[in-house]
C-alpha cells in the first residue's frame, strides 16, 4: 500500500455527496401479495378444485334457471304421464334414439303387439319404436305343437297411453272441437261399440274395458280379426241415439259421417280422447319433459331445480348462522379460558352427544306445528351444527391470544371485544372460511337424508326436495330408473364438487403447505 499523507487537505476540496439528492430505499420491483390473493393463486393451481368450482357454478345456475326454463311449474301435475321417461317430440318423431320416452316391455305376445300397433294405426302415433328381440317357445295346444312368439318391444310410453275415456262438460267438448278445427290435431276419437268389438261374446261385462281396442276381435281375448290385406276392421259405434252432443269438427279418415264422437251422460258427455292431443289442448303445447316425469307427474327437470334451490339456500343459511354462533361462542371460550371455558366446553359435549337424527325428530315433533316445518328443521341444524365451528375458533384463539401483537394492543388500551374481533379473529378467518365450504355439503347431505327418510316433510313449503324426489324414485326404480337417476346424479355431483372445492380451499388457506407442492 502506498504511504499517503492526508493530513493537510484544504476544505475547498470537499463537496457534498448528495446534497440535493432524494434519499430513498430501492422500490420493490414485485407486487406485494395479500393473504387472500395468495390463497387464490394457490387455489388456482389445484386443477380439480377449479373444475369443482365450475361444476358448482353450473349446478347453481341449473338450480336457478331450470324451474324458469321448464314449461311446467312445480304444481303442474299430470296424473297420466307419471314416471315417464324423458321426451321431446322432435327427437321422438325423428327417431333419434334419445328423448323418445322409451320404455322396454318384456315378453309381449303377438296379441299385445297387435294392440300396440293398432294404437299407432288409429291415432297415427305408433308407440312401437323398435322390436328388440323375438323369442320362440313351443307349446302344446289341443294336442298339437305350435310355435309361440314373444317379443321384447321398445315403446314410446307417451304414445302408448293412446286413447282414454273421459267425461267432459259440454263447454269443454265444444272447445276441443274448436281446437281441432284450428290445429288439425285429432283429440276426439269415435266411441267404440263393445258389442261390435266382440261379436262372439254374449256377456260383455266379463271382458275388461280396454279403451285402445277399436277393432273387431274374433274371441274374448282380443285376437284381432284381420282381412286379406292385413287391415283391422273398425268397430265404432254408429248409434246416433246415444250421442251426447253435436259433433261438427273434423272426422277421422274412413268416417262416412256416421260415427258418433260422444256418449250422453247426465249434464256432460263421455268421450274417447287421444290423451297426447288432449294434453296439447290442455297445456297449449305438446309434452316436453327433458328429464322425464316423476311419480306425481311433474316435470323432473324443473322439480330437481326447485329442490336444489331449497337445498342450496338452506345450506348457505345454516352455515351462515352456525358460523356466526360458533365464532362468537368459540371466541369467548378461547379468549377468556379458565373455568368459563370448561363450563362452556361441557355444554358443547352434551349437545354434541345428542345424535342429530334425534334432534331433528324432536324438533319436528315439537316445533313443526308452532313455527313451521322449515324453521323447526333449521333450528335442529343450528342446535348442534355450530359446535365444530366453535371448537375451531377456540383453537385458533388459544393459538393467537398470547402473541405479542395482542399484548401490544392490550397495552394500548383496546377493549376485550376489540381484541377478540379486530386483532385475533381475522387471523383465524382462513380456517373458518374453509370449514364453511365443507359444512355446506354436509348440510345438504343431512337435509337430503332426512327428507329421503321422510322424517321431515318439506314439500309443502319448498314444492319438492331432492330427498323427496329420490325416495319416490326409489319406489319406481325398476320401471323408470330415470326418476332416481337424475336426482342422484345431481346430488352426487353437488356433494363431490363441494367437497373437492372445500379441500382445495383448505389447502390454499393453509400457510404451512405453502411452497411444498412445487
Amino acid at each position: 500500500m502506498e504511504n499517503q499523507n492526508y493530513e493537510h487537505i484544504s476544505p475547498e476540496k470537499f463537496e457534498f455527496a448528495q446534497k440535493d439528492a432524494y434519499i430513498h430505499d430501492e422500490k420493490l420491483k414485485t407486487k406485494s401479495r395479500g393473504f387472500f390473493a395468495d390463497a387464490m393463486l394457490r387455489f388456482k393451481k389445484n386443477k380439480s378444485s377449479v373444475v369443482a368450482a365450475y361444476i358448482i357454478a353450473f349446478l347453481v345456475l341449473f338450480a336457478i334457471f331450470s324451474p324458469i326454463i321448464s314449461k311446467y311449474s312445480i304444481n303442474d301435475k299430470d296424473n297420466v304421464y307419471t314416471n315417464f321417461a324423458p321426451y321431446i317430440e322432435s327427437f321422438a318423431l325423428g327417431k333419434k334414439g334419445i328423448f323418445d320416452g322409451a320404455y322396454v316391455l318384456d315378453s309381449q305376445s303377438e296379441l299385445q303387439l297387435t294392440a300396440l300397433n293398432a294404437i299407432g294405426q288409429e291415432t297415427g302415433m305408433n308407440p312401437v319404436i323398435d322390436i328388440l328381440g323375438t323369442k320362440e317357445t313351443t307349446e302344446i295346444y289341443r294336442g298339437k305343437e305350435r310355435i309361440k312368439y314373444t317379443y321384447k318391444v321398445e315403446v314410446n310410453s307417451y304414445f302408448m297411453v293412446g286413447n282414454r275415456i273421459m267425461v267432459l262438460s259440454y263447454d269443454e267438448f265444444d272447445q276441443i272441437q274448436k281446437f281441432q278445427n284450428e290445429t288439425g290435431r285429432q283429440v276426439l276419437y269415435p266411441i267404440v261399440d263393445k258389442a261390435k268389438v266382440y261379436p262372439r261374446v254374449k256377456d260383455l261385462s266379463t271382458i275388461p274395458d280396454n279403451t285402445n281396442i277399436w277393432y273387431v276381435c274374433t274371441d274374448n281375448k282380443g285376437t284381432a280379426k284381420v282381412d286379406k290385406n292385413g287391415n283391422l276392421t273398425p268397430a265404432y259405434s254408429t248409434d246416433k241415439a246415444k250421442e251426447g252432443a253435436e259433433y261438427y269438427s273434423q272426422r277421422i279418415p274412413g268416417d262416412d259421417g256416421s260415427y258418433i264422437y260422444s256418449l250422453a251422460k247426465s249434464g256432460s258427455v263421455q268421450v274417447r280422447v287421444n290423451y297426447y292431443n288432449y294434453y296439447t289442448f290442455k297445456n297449449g303445447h305438446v309434452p316436453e319433459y327433458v328429464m322425464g316425469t316423476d311419480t306425481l307427474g311433474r316435470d323432473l327437470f324443473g322439480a330437481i331445480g326447485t329442490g336444489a334451490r331449497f337445498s342450496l339456500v338452506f345450506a348457505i343459511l345454516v352455515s351462515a348462522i352456525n358460523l356466526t354462533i360458533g365464532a362468537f361462542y368459540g371466541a369467548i371460550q378461547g379468549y377468556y379460558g379458565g373455568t368459563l371455558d370448561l363450563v362452556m366446553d361441557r355444554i358443547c359435549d352434551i349437545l354434541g352427544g345428542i345424535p342429530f337424527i334425534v334432534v331433528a325428530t324432536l324438533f319436528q315433533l315439537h316445533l313443526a306445528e308452532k313455527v313451521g316445518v322449515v324453521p323447526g328443521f333449521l333450528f335442529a341444524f343450528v342446535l348442534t351444527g355450530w359446535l365444530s365451528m366453535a371448537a375451531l375458533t377456540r383453537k385458533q384463539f388459544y393459538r393467537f391470544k398470547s402473541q405479542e401483537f395482542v399484548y401490544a394492543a392490550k397495552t394500548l388500551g383496546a377493549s376485550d371485544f376489540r381484541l377478540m374481533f379486530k386483532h385475533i379473529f381475522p387471523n383465524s378467518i382462513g380456517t373458518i372460511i374453509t370449514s364453511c365450504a365443507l359444512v355446506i355439503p354436509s348440510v345438504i347431505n343431512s337435509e337430503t337424508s332426512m327428507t329421503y327418510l321422510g322424517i321431515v316433510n318439506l314439500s309443502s313449503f319448498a314444492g319438492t326436495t331432492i330427498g323427496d324426489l329420490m325416495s319416490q324414485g326409489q319406489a319406481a326404480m325398476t320401471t323408470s330408473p330415470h326418476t332416481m337417476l337424475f336426482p342422484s346424479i345431481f346430488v352426487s355431483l353437488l356433494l363431490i364438487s363441494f367437497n373437492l372445492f372445500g379441500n382445495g380451499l383448505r389447502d390454499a388457506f393453509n400457510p404451512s403447505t405453502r411452497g411444498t407442492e412445487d
Partner: protein
Amino acid sequence: MFKYALKRIALMLMTVFIIMCMCFILIRMLPPVPLQPGDPHTEVLMARREAMGYNKPIIVQLGIFLKDIFTRWDWGISDSLYYGQNVWSIFVTKLPASIIVNLYSIIWSIPVGIALGVFAALKKNTWIDHTISTLTMVVISVPSFVYAFLIQYFLSYKLSLFPFLMKGGTDWFSKEMFISMVPAVLSLSFGVIAGFTRTTRAELTEVLTSEFMLLARTKGLTKRQATVRHAFKNCMVVIVPAIFGNFVGILSGSLIIEKIFSIPGVGGLYLNAINARDYNIFMLDTAFYTVIGLAASIIVDISYGFIDPRIRMGSKK
C-alpha cells in the same frame, strides 16, 4: 391411563344422563298417542300409563322412569307399534339384523380399505395414487342411498344376482340370508372402504417421510422391511382406534340402508317408532344411539393410549 379412562367414562355417563333427561322431558311434553277406545289393549295400556305417571308432573314421571330403569331395567311398553309389549324385548330382537349386516360389511371393507391406502401411499404422486385418492374423495361424498340405488338396479334388477330386499326370518347364518344381505352389505361398504383408504394413505405418507424411516434405511433395511416393521406399525396407531370405533358403530346400524333393503334392524325400528308416535321405543332408541355415539368416541380416545406408548393421556409422571 386407568384414571383417565375412568374419568372419561364417568363424564360420559353424566352426559348420557343429562341427554336422556332432556330428551325424556321433551318427549313427555308431547301429547300422548290417543288410544283406540274399545281395543282390547287399551285398558292395559291405560293402566300401564297410569303406573308410569302420565297424569303427574313431568319431574315425577322422570323419577318413575329412572327408577324403573335402575331397579328393573324396564323401559316401558310399546304404545302403538307393538301393543303392550315390553320395549326392551322388542329392541333386543331388532339388534341381530343390524349387527350382522354391519359386521359383514366392515369385516371385508377394513382390510380392503387399508390395502388400498397402503398401495396409494407407496405409489405416492403417481397416477395410481391420484386415481385412488380421487375415487376415495368421490366415494366419500356420494350419499349411501345412491349406492343402494345403483346396486339394486344393476345387481338385483338387471343381473338378478341378489334379491331386492333382505329375507325375513331369524335364520341369520343361512346361505339364503347371506345372499339376501349382500346388496345391503355392499352399499354400506363403500363409505367404510373410502374412509379407511383415506386415513391410511394420509397417515402412511406422513410416516414414510419421517426421519426414523431414513434411519431404518440407513442401517441397511430394505424398503419393504422398513415399511412393514417401522412405518406400518406407526401408522396402526391411528388405524386401530378407527377400527374399534367402527366396531362400536355397527350396533347402531344405518337408517337409510335399513329402510331401503327393509332390514329388520334398529334403524327401521326407529323410523317406525317416529311414524307411529311410539314414544317409549323412541326414547330407548335415543338413549341407545347416544350411548353408542359417545362410547365409540371414548373407545377411540382410550385405545390411542393403549396402543401408542408415546401417548399416555392423563398420566402424571
